[in-house]
């Protein structure tokens, strides 16, 4: 029972973090791309 819960939540946790992580990653990528001009 607990193992089932665990498996379900692992998938849901991964999906949830991906949902917020993808836009955050997009923002991070653009900020790093802009910041890289400082060192070009």
């Amino acid at each position, binding site marked *: 029972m607990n193992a089932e819960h*665990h498996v379900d939540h692992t998938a849901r946790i991964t999906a949830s973090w991906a949902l917020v992580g993808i836009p955050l990653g997009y*923002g991070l990528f653009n900020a790093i791309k802009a910041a890289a001009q*400082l060192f*070009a």
Partner: protein
Amino acid sequence: MSALSFLDREHTIAPPGYSRWLIPPAALAIHLCIGQAYATSVYKIALVEHFGASLTSVGYIFSVAIVMLGVSAALFGTWVDRVGPRKTMFTAACCWASGFLVAALGIQSGQLWLVYLGYGFIGGIGLGLGYISPVSTLIKWFPDRPGLATGMAIMGFGGGAMVASPLSQKLLVAYGGDTFGGDAVMKLFLTLAVIYFVFMMFGVFTVKVPPPGWAPAGFDPSTIKSKKMVTSNHVSAANAIKTPQFWLLWTVLFCNVTAGIGILENAKPMLEDFFRDDSGNSTVAAATAAGFVGLLSLGNMTGRFAWSTTSDYLGRKMTYVMYLGGGMLLFFGVATIGETSTGLFVLLMVLIISYYGGGFATVPAYLRDLFGTFQVGAIHGRLLTAWSAAGIAGPLIINAILDAQGKEPGTLIAGDYRSPILIMVGILAVGFVANLLITPVSDGFHEKGAVVDAVDRHHKQDTGVEPEDIPIIEEELIAQRRLETDPDLRPN
């Protein structure tokens, strides 16, 4: 009304086995959306031209939104704690999205006041509610790591601008070409209203409050009780504002934000003004200035997460000693040796901005340490009035002193910034002393009876357990006992 009963706090209690690691993404979903408030510069000029208004008049849209953030967080904080995170997030999403819609109507009809009303007033309420909505829930799910928990959420506010800025730029070009105008901004607002509403609904449907007595596996409440500056008692929001600790912390936040926001607003022109050749032309290339702004965004966001997480180990008071004491040294460095090298200037400024962001993210955990978890959301809401006040004071101080030099923008040099920066050192010194004066809240302000929230009342109906009979001091021990005896309550 019953159709919306799924929003009630009582209906958001996590079932056994619900993972607490689902709560930070829910909080991030809200903060990533409302963080757009710091990406308004993308369309500012287009609005100036569309309305034929001054930069200051258009700038008021953002100012009204930030003032409403503080006002709504302060006024509705107790309501937020009572109704729970789901209803608050839902209300925040409605206000934030409808704010964009009303503002879009204002642009379409050429009525600037509708933009103030929409984005500034209605959207500002969404900002305030959204900002505080996940805080107390996160603190309850992460009693062992409150700094990490609030850092994860409030990092999203910094990250929201990083997402909204390039996204808005792309959408504006798609809607109006390279020389986009007000019509493109109107379409952008309509698009953002839909995107943000849908994204915030993910947070609404994911967030849950922990069941009564829940504690993370392996959590030892005695580790909290052994820390001098961390209370195991509870203070109501009404009592909190009567304590000197609240106002000292208000001063700390006000000083940290005033110094940081004043610099943040002027960061790009400062870089250009600090490095001029003999003929008065800036030696900083446009690409370098853009890179600097990108690096500041990164410093702001990572500071929120990294410093707040560090505060779980360093202690909240010591962390603010670092923000304010370290900040004084960094500001002094900018004023005295900042002009010697671009690299040094950038390094000092990025550290300053990371402390500014860290100050926002660490303050909810500081409040939890001083006042307990009972109404920490409401107390946080009241404290955010310091942000609103600093949002006015910071830019005002810097701009007033620069204006007093009587020079045109683009002709300032490093020496012109020395006075306002040294004033910021003084402001940080005031915050530094205020932080040192913070001591544990005296017993007279602690709640005398048992502290029961809506979740516990619901639990009583289900089980017949009388949480009112449980002395506060034993709550954590009872939680531990429940965990030991009830395998269903053990978290993953």
